[in-house]
């Protein structure tokens, strides 16, 4: 699980072009949206695409994203349970 969390941090920085943020700056339970990393709605859509592309997870209901993308911790937990690749 620890390796998956590190992988997610690295992917998020790359996919969302978070140029000024390093892996070490993101804590597992930091909020990804709002006051945390400050991601926006387009970033949320990119994360949905990333789940599909890299882990074979298709989010049928985008509202699910609110819970899944709460933090690295929740994302890693969801991916570990549902990944097909």
């Amino acid at each position, binding site marked *: 699980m620890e390796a998956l969390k590190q992988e997610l941090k690295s992917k998020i920085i790359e996919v969302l072009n*978070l*140029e000024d943020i390093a892996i070490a700056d993101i804590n597992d339970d930091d909020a990804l949206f709002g006051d945390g990393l400050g991601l926006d709605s*387009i*970033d949320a859509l990119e994360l949905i*695409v990333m789940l*599909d*592309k890299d882990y074979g997870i298709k989010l049928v209901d985008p509202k699910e994203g609110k819970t899944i993308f709460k933090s690295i911790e929740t994302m890693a937990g969801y991916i570990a349970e549902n990944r097909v690749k």
Partner: protein
Amino acid sequence: MTAKKTYIQSFCTIQNNQILMNGEVVFSTEPTAFSDFSKKTYQHLEMNYPKFFKMDNLSKLAFLGAEFLLKSESNFSKENNTALVFANKSSSLDTDVKYQNSISDAENYYPSPAVFVYTLPNICLGEISIKHQLKSENSFFIFADYNPEFMEKYSNILLETLKADKVLCGWVEYYNENYKAFLYLVDKEGEIEHNQEILKKLYKQ
């Protein structure tokens, strides 16, 4: 009725890894890709605006030009009514091609929402407006070539009809690593006369 004279308050040119303000080089790098040049320019400006790195190249080009120009305007207030009138030749084609590539393979079909939002050229005007809190008139035109005649007339109409107090005009062309931006601020006062001949001359500098 004779139209009142208008003036070019300041102008900025970006091309060949170089930025000129009013004809003087203010920043340059060794020959490098635009992504690297734009990043170094951002760092040179000591900005703290992470959204910059999410923009496409056309928006980065327009945004940096506006940043240099509006930064040097000591009277530029967040409340002012500065219209934006921009144009180019290639529209958002550079990003359109990038987006098309991401959806052309049915077996590897992962369209990027972050790329898609930049598949319109006028998005760069939104980026400038957000940064400088502008709620003013804005338009983006596509022409076969740089068109000072149209730009002069259009910006003068905005000033004469009191739609704007100033007009930030720009030619921002970006396609496949070839780029040129020429931005200038038109006002009712100033020293450089705002006319087609001057616009042609300044563009060539």
